[in-house]
């Protein structure tokens, strides 16, 4: 076993986990508190990517561009909630799925028209494009380290917001029993708008920080959204803590599967079959994980209390 490779892959797994967490945090709040199935959550991820790419190009600075893109995300999220999603709360899940799927198609095409099929990208400044060498000869690209650190900072801030502040108390209360919160005289409409705006900023931030790596393109949110749904189902719908732990677990298992499964299969079959089976099995791993966890804990690892 190559320990340097193993260590680097653990880092890569964490990095994927952080991105998944940022997406899943908003998704789990919106689903858990507002009971809204928002397939267009990946669209917000795409919004973040393109907003950041555009602001970075205009200002010439990575940090400034991303800072400007955050309030833009909040505005975009609130507008989307007020104009479209608010009308969907009373409808059943199928209507919500159809309407938000429509949003995906609409925005994917709109972005193609505005930014072109080549999409957009962000070039890393020289101070972020190097490699960090850790003890033992492990090297990690600087920027991926930045993603991990900023993701952990956001997770801590979110933890503080949800568990130590009044608004966080309302959010938790909303996740446990929506009707009761409304009955106690809380402006549930405003709370929903705020929660959705927060989710939009988190998803947008994920899109922003991944853009220097994957580039921004129309439709980029859909493939990762499926993983984000897996994460919230594993973690327990409505739970931020569950989303964090499930995201890290999913990120690690997916990365480890892609890295080592073909080698792990070699003792059981010939090289050609291992090569064919490897990618197939590694892309199944997280779904197998989900199935196992749901069999043992049907409402996920950390379901909100009272739900």
């Amino acid at each position, binding site marked *: 076993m190559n320990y340097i*490779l193993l260590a680097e892959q653990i880092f890569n797994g964490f990095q994927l986990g952080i991105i998944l967490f940022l997406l899943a945090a908003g998704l789990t709040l919106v689903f858990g508190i507002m009971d809204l199935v928002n397939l267009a959550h990946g669209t917000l991820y795409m919004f973040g990517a393109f907003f950041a790419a555009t602001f970075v190009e205009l200002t010439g600075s990575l940090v400034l561009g991303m800072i400007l893109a955050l309030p833009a995300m909040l505005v975009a999220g609130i507008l989307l909630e007020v104009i479209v999603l608010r009308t969907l709360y009373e409808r059943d899940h199928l209507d919500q799925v159809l309407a938000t799927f429509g949003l995906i198609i609409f925005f994917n*095409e709109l972005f*193609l028209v505005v930014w072109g099929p080549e999409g957009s*990208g962000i070039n890393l400044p020289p101070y972020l494009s*190097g490699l960090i060498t850790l003890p033992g000869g492990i090297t990690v690209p600087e920027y991926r380290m930045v993603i991990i650190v900023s993701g952990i900072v956001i997770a801590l801030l979110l933890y503080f917001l949800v568990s130590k502040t009044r608004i966080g108390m309302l959010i938790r209360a909303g996740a446990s029993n929506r009707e009761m919160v409304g009955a106690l005289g809380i402006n549930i409409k405003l709370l929903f708008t705020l929660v959705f705006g927060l989710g939009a900023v988190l998803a947008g931030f994920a899109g922003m920080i991944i853009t220097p790596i994957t*580039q921004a393109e129309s439709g980029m949110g859909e493939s990762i959204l499926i993983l984000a749904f897996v994460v919230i189902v594993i973690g327990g719908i409505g739970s931020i803590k569950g989303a964090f732990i499930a995201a890290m677990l999913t990120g690690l298992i997916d990365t480890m599967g892609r890295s080592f499964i073909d080698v792990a299969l070699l003792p059981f079959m010939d090289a050609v079959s291992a*090569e064919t089976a490897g990618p197939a099995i590694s892309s199944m791993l997280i779904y197998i994980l989900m199935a196992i966890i749901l069999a043992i804990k049907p409402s996920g690892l950390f379901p909100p209390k009272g739900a």
Partner: protein
Amino acid sequence: MLKKLILAAPLSVMLLVPNVEAAEKIKVGIVITLTTPASIMGKQMKAAYEVASDHLGGKMGGKEFEMIFEDDGLKPNIGKQKTEKLIKKDKVDFLTGYIWSHVMGASAPVALKAGKIFVSSNAGHSPYAGKMCHKNFFNAAWENSQNPMAMGSLLNQRGVKNLYVLSLNYAAGKQMVAGVERTFKGKVVGKDLVPMAHKDWSAELAKVKAAKPDGVFVFYPGSWGPAFFTQYKQAGLNKTIPLYSVFSVDGANLPVFQKRKMDHLLGTYNTMFWAPDLDNATNKRFVADFAKKYKGQKPSHYAAQAYDSLMLIAAGVKAAGGDAKNTDAVRKGMEKADFDSVRGRIKFGKNHFPIQNFYAREVVNKNGQWQVSVRGTVVKNHAPVMSNECKL
């Protein structure tokens, strides 16, 4: 009542006349990707079909023709639906386009069953060069494994001993890998087929670094290219391991690479049957007119293949004396391929795939515009290896 009839009579004649004309027009149905990020290829191809149409003066064998473009959305089921629509509703005489092997695999059987002549302008799905070859199926591009086979030979020439192979996990991606492994004489030290949904290669790049190869072979067409090459540089691999690519660094992508300042791609090598600076008169005219039509850009090989596809159909119709419905005569004409292609003269094998040269190409900055430039011939008159399996 009578008044109505009198009024209606000339009207119905007016309606009838253009219908008769339209029925006589030759119709070419073209299925390409015009939405999704992959439309970067489709839009170049559309421009190239239009250049070809201009060069033909809008006529094939003395008859006017029209082109009907459809978008496959990069999905096999939609490509198939659009093919059916073109055959049943538009009643096209020819079908061409088709960028993706999996889209073509779903669509070609429909067209062939309806007795239409089908010309693939890009997708080189291997079975059609061998067991599944069909008298009405033509390919104006290549068979998937041909270009990577040329790359394998180039790797041998350049002294690469240990190779890491990275590709996309779909029909063509696997056939590309099979191609390079067929001719590469060194050792393949690692191989990863990445799902099409993945745009982050962190796990695979860490494996490449650990395997320490002296060359990396990649097949990341369309929008996979910019993302992959960015990460290759971020991982610091561009300084230590040379990149060799097929269908990943091309005319469709180069303006994007240049705009995003991906300088590490300059000087990298790829292989192809054609290049914008390939020296022949047809190619020079095509490259110049394409730039006028499409944002001043150099055409990609997708565009070159699209141009040749329409010219091939036109040569068939001309040989049939303008009677596009006479499929047998058109087919015979197409087999002779009596026209000047952008790659010189085309010779078809019995499986209707071109037998052609493959060139090494280097990415260069020429007068401030990035392009691929021919650096010698790697293989001459290359036919798909499965040609003998074709029983035509």
